[in-house]
């Protein structure tokens, strides 16, 4: 039988070679084509489905608020659900894990003399490998969702929660049909659909038991809701004489009307439809007519509801992780994830893929498998812009990662490096200077790969920037001689490692632009790395040491504002430090005061220019496009200002490029650790830049500057990449200063 010979590509506890798996997927042309076509069409199709909705955001807030309330009252809600089911004559069970579900279910099968089972898609049952257990007991089990059915025949896992078989093409599907049916099935889609209808219809008509999951379970009346396009869930809940529902606690909602909050978002985000073909609600036992001892009889269908915990209740009690309850499994976070769209769902391991999959795996399965692929989230935050339940996926991954590190520690070389090098500014900076002397990447195993400045294994497809002979910190004395005499403000500059050691010239530009605004600039020498690379590994303790050093260094300066021209640093200084010290009253206050002064460079300058009347669009001839870095666009919510600055810059003809805010693939350590994924992302970006016809691509982030420069250098050497600070400084030098324009 099909699923009996399940040969999953990898089992969850196995030590995996992720790089190898990724390589295989990247070479899978069928999958790559399918995913890239889908990813291109998805955003517009989704928006079209929302065309007749006044505010998507209001719907998302409503859904989140409802789910938040539910998880805060999960025990009451679950009790009410249980009471509602029982009052209607259903049987109710709670199972703490997959083993308990199987035990309960096998007992039911025995009592009710069940032989044949049809299932409609249920992630919860996949999560606990239910089919295998049932088949081992000799039961005949069939998935009835077409995609799931093909995968069970193929012995594969779903690669997407909504489109499980998206990685396959029609020829591969026809192969699985032929194998299962022992007949030659041509790769003609209508023929295959018809064949599936014929074969699965027999299954529906002869099954004793139907098993479904639920998209929601209503506490108020005990109804469960099922959303499908094929209608298989309707048949699974209609034809067999027994209905078993297996649902997780996160599916519960309090009231009948709360279902609307899910239903207005889930189909639109999941399949770009205003509603799926079938939305079915089953509330308690319902009549069934079936043949018993050669005669048609009408009876009440037996209903068994199993509420599955498997880590969910622990998550519900956790102030951070309870946010996973806001997920309605629409899978749209995958559809916009730059990693998933390249490698597909299988490399994520367990059943749930993508960023949300990493989290669910950590919570429901185990932290070991989470730790194996949690790095596959690059923190670009694209998913957060569309998730119906507003689940902060990257933040939850960070949280789990840091908990894992707290419990298990970092690998040894990394630990030594971070603790002893990054927390000692001088040692760290000396190392960087040594890198400059050698003029080649310093290699030192595990540690180096986490620093954005070192590029082991990164040369293919992009050039490497050299470490500057004279870092920014050695240039400040001359620069600050030009500080205005009667400044309007005193700004402390936080350069970040990149601007300090790789792009000190851009650091100079930042200073000149600020000085031109009559601002005094100072540079606290004691500043170090913002700590983001350490945070990325989950080591919050070391990050705290670094944060304290930076906060102290800037407190002493008594500056009015702290300016950073690296959005990643700006976000870390402004937001992450405050979160880091949430439990430490003294440092929490200091971090807040510090964070309140932080200004991202382009948004700050745009504000000053606007006040000075310098933000007027000009007509120019040099075509310039703009790449939104993930951290500035979605971390800080800044995207208008850089464009305004460019449009106002003399000589510039501003053009947009396709997917301007899609990650360039750098993402800190990711670009180094997974260069095989980072490079195709870079290549796509470079293609979009080329297609825009721009002579120059402007950025507001030094990490993107580095990545794009490396990529364009090799693939389109005529196109320049420049930080906006450099463009502005050049204009000032050319005489377009504030004094003149006023």
């Amino acid at each position, binding site marked *: 039988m099909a699923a009996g010979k399940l040969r999953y590509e990898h089992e969850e506890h196995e030590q995996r070679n992720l790089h190898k798996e990724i390589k295989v997927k990247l070479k899978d042309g069928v999958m790559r084509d399918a995913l890239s076509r889908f990813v291109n069409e998805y955003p517009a199709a989704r928006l079209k489905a929302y065309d007749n909705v006044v505010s998507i955001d209001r719907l998302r807030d409503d859904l989140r608020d409802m789910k938040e309330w539910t998880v805060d009252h999960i025990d009451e809600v679950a009790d009410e659900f249980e009471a509602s089911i029982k009052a209607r004559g259903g049987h109710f069970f709670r199972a703490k894990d997959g083993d308990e579900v199987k035990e309960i279910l096998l007992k039911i099968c025995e009592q009710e003399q069940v032989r044949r089972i049809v299932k409609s898609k249920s992630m919860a049952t996949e999560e606990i490998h239910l089919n295998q257990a049932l088949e081992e007991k000799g039961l005949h089990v069939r998935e009835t969702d077409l995609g799931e059915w093909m995968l069970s025949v193929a012995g594969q896992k779903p690669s997407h929660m909504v489109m499980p078989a998206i990685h396959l093409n029609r020829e591969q599907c026809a192969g699985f049909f032929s194998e299962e049916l022992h007949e030659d099935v041509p790769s003609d*889609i*209508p023929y295959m659909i018809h064949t599936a209808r014929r074969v699965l219809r027999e299954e529906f008509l002869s099954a004793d038991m139907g098993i479904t999951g639920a998209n929601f379970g209503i506490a108020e009346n005990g109804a469960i*809701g099922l959303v499908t396009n*094929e209608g298989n869930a309707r048949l699974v809940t209609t034809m067999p004489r027994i209905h078993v529902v297996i649902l997780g606690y996160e599916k519960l909602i309090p009231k009948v009307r709360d279902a609307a909050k899910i239903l207005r978002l889930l189909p639109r985000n999941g*399949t770009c439809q205003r509603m799926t*073909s*079938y939305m079915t609600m089953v509330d*308690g036992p319902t009549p069934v007519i079936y043949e018993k001892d050669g005669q*048609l009889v009408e009876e009440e269908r037996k209903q068994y509801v199993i509420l599955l915990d498997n880590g969910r209740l622990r998550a519900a009690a956790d102030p951070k992780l309870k946010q996973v309850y806001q997920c309605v499994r629409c899978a749209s976070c995958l559809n916009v994830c730059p990693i998933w769209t390249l490698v597909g769902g299988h490399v994520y391991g367990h059943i749930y893929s993508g960023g949300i999959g990493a989290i669910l795996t950590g919570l429901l399965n185990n932290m070991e498998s989470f730790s194996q692929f949690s790095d596959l989230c690059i923190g670009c935050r694209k998913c957060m812009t569309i998730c119906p339940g507003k689940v902060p996926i990257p933040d939850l991954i960070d949280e789990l990662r840091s908990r894992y590190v707290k419990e298990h520690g970092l690998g040894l070389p990394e630990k030594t490096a971070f603790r002893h090098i990054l927390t000692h500014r001088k040692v760290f900076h000396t190392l960087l200077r040594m890198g400059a002397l050698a003029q080649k990447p310093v290699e030192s195993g595990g540690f180096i790969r986490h620093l954005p400045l070192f590029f082991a294994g990164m040369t293919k497809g992009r050039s490497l920037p050299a470490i500057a002979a004279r870092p920014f910190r050695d240039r400040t004395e001359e620069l600050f001689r030009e500080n205005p005499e009667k400044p309007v403000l005193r700004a402390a500059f936080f350069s970040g490692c990149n601007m300090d050691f790789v792009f000190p010239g851009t650091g100079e530009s930042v200073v000149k632009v600020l000085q031109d605004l009559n601002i005094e600039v100072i540079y606290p020498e004691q500043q170090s790395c913002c700590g983001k690379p350490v945070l990325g590994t989950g080591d919050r303790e070391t990050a705290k040491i670094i944060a304290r050093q930076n906060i102290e260094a800037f407190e002493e300066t008594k500056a009015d504002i702290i300016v950073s021209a690296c959005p990643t640093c700006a976000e870390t200084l402004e937001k992450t430090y405050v979160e880091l010290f949430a439990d430490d009253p003294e440092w929490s206050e200091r971090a807040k005061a510090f964070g309140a002064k932080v200004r991202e460079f382009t948004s700050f300058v745009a504000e000053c220019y606007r006040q000075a009347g310098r933000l007027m669009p000009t007509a120019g001839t040099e075509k310039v496009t703009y790449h939104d870095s993930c951290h500035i666009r979605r971390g800080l919510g800044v995207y208008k200002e850089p464009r305004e600055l460019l449009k106002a810059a003399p000589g510039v003809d501003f053009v947009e490029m396709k997917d301007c805010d899609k990650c360039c693939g750098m993402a800190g350590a990711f670009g180094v650790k997974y260069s095989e994924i980072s490079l195709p992302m870079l290549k796509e970006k470079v293609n979009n830049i080329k297609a825009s016809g721009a002579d120059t691509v402007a950025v507001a982030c030094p990490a993107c500057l580095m990545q794009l420069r490396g990529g364009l250098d090799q693939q389109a050497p005529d196109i320049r990449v420049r930080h906006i600070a450099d463009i502005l400084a050049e204009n000032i030098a050319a005489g377009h200063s504030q004094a003149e324009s006023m």
Partner: protein
Amino acid sequence: MLKVCNDWPREAFTDELVSGKYWNDFSVNAKAAAAELWRVPDMLEARRKLEELIESLAVKKVVAVGGGELPALDYLYDELAKRTELYTDKFDIARQAPQADLGISVAEFGVGETGSVCVDTYAFESRVVGMLPPVHVVFLDPAYMVRDVETAFEVIEKVFKSGYMGFITGPSRTADIERVLSLGVHGPSRFIIMAVEQGLERQVH
């Protein structure tokens, strides 16, 4: 026939929630979901359309529900039974539905925002007529429309205490093979909404 609510108009509808003015939204969205919309003035015309359908598809067997509650439908079914095998008894339906060519049932109201019809399918036979035959026709009163899914649930919550109900929005579909849209994978490949302007409760002469 067993229903979640025996009289939706009286027990669940209010003038604020339910109105024919959402018909336009409904028809646009229903068509976008690949439903076929047949708007007819009265039962006579409905009958003519159905006879045409039976003719053109060479329908041999029909399973139909709703006649017990709506005399106008009952009469229509009697008429249709002169041309084709037609079953309305629940055991007959259970036996015949797997081979039937056409299923006929009734929807309670339409949803403007999505083009869905809300179906009260507590009875086993009302579900199989809509799922097993390749073509499904639902009767609908075009005056019974709600604006959106939110208001639909305001209506539903008044009466949904137990049973089986939901929305149908176009035919059964899948895109599981190469994301190519294919209709009729498990349920009907044609879903026809027969909107009778005169309403469903009025007797045909």
